[in-house]
């Protein structure tokens, strides 16, 4: 527990000092949403049903930037190695980093919602439930994303490698998150949203437990 609190303290400091990066990623996500809407055209009848998919695509693309960046400070003077030698527990280091990345994605996803509403003329009947789905979907991205970012952070082509490894793995999470978001925004006459949310929770549980166990093998020599 002490190690987890220490890891969270470190991550909070890193996030605060790197807050300009979050704003840059938010602008990137908003730009992606804007470009997607340009690609479809100005017809709001066409835009509305695809808005949930584009919201998640924008969040997924943005996530590769935040995840890769989350190890930048750890790389500079081998700070991560310094913590491993203290010794800090692998689980605490992983959880601290994954929770920080998750929080960043939740903030990012929440901030993208009003932009999506404006650009895609989308309805927002249950905003709190939508934030809940974003939180669950982001958890499904940040858990494997943190592991893969740790794997690729020393590679020269990490910006390319990370999405190549991450995207195939998070397809089920993406599908479940898009379905749940669509049902919340466009209506759920059959009451299916609950099933998709349960599926998301299931993926999250698998990813968080498995990636936490594998982290030690990834970061040790």
């Amino acid at each position: 527990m002490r190690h987890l609190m220490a890891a969270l303290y470190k991550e909070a400091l890193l996030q605060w000092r790197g807050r300009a990066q979050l704003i840059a990623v938010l602008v990137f996500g908003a730009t992606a949403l804007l470009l997607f809407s340009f690609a479809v055209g100005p017809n709001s009848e066409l835009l509305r049903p695809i808005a949930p998919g584009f919201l998640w695509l924008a969040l997924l693309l943005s996530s590769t930037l935040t995840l890769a960046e989350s190890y930048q400070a750890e790389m500079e003077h081998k700070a991560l190695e310094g913590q491993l030698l203290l010794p800090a527990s692998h689980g605490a280091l992983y959880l601290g980093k994954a929770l920080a990345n998750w929080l960043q994605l939740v903030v990012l996803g929440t901030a993208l919602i009003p932009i999506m509403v404006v650009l895609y003329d989308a309805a927002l009947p249950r905003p709190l439930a939508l934030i809940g789905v974003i939180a669950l979907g982001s958890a499904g991205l940040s858990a494997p994303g943190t592991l893969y970012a740790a794997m690729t952070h020393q590679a020269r082509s990490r910006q390319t490698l990370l999405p190549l490894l991450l995207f195939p793995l998070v397809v089920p999470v993406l599908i479940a998150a898009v379905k749940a978001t669509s049902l919340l925004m466009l209506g759920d006459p059959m009451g299916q949203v609950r099933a998709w949310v349960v599926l998301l929770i299931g993926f999250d549980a698998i990813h968080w437990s498995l990636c936490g166990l594998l982290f030690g093998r990834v970061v040790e020599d």
Partner: protein
Amino acid sequence: MNQETKIAAVEAAGLCRRYGRRWALIDVSFRIDPGRAVMIAGRNGSGKSTLLRLLATAIRPDRGTARLLGRDVRRQLETVRRHVALLGHYSYLYETFSALENLQVVGRFIGRDTRREALMPLLAEVTLAERADDPVSTFSAGMRKRLSLARTLLQDASVVLLDEPYGELDPPGFRLVDRLFGTLRARGVTILMATHLIDRGAALCDDGIVLEQGRLVWSGPARDLPGAGVLDPATLPEGTA
């Protein structure tokens, strides 16, 4: 207690480590008793840093075994790490954190008192008290080294590994390292120090070992090491290889 039955602070047997196809350490064996200070000498690329990183568990041996206070560096990682501190070529510092915050992060992980008033004496010891709240990104190389020294001391380890501790330091910094070395020795800490400053190291340490192309080519009393950086094995005095 008999010297043979006493648990060694550091014990290496047949240590080998390679990077790709190049062997950085070949069949290195030695034993260091608790409380001794040992200097590691050798040319650039002779394996000094690899040996220290291996003993600190930053890297693993490809062959052979190493034990710190009786614990295997390969199998008992966490226990070994609780007893060893490494001042290496990497500072392990966060650029965007202040000097104090860097120490606070370490302190939180190892369960030390991380209040400002508890850590300021340590920063004062390495003459960084006035820069405690400045980000490390504004520090010179020498100041970073001083902060790394403070980070190493904070760990309060039984075995301290110093890899070129004088590097990047000014003359007062040299004296600071000498003073801290004395403090560690007074505490009974076992010290391994890799340095090119033969005379200085020989004056501070009890024993010395010399590495040459990854092999241990000499070991003996530190005072018998040749001065002024002459490390040709042929010129070394009588010792044990």
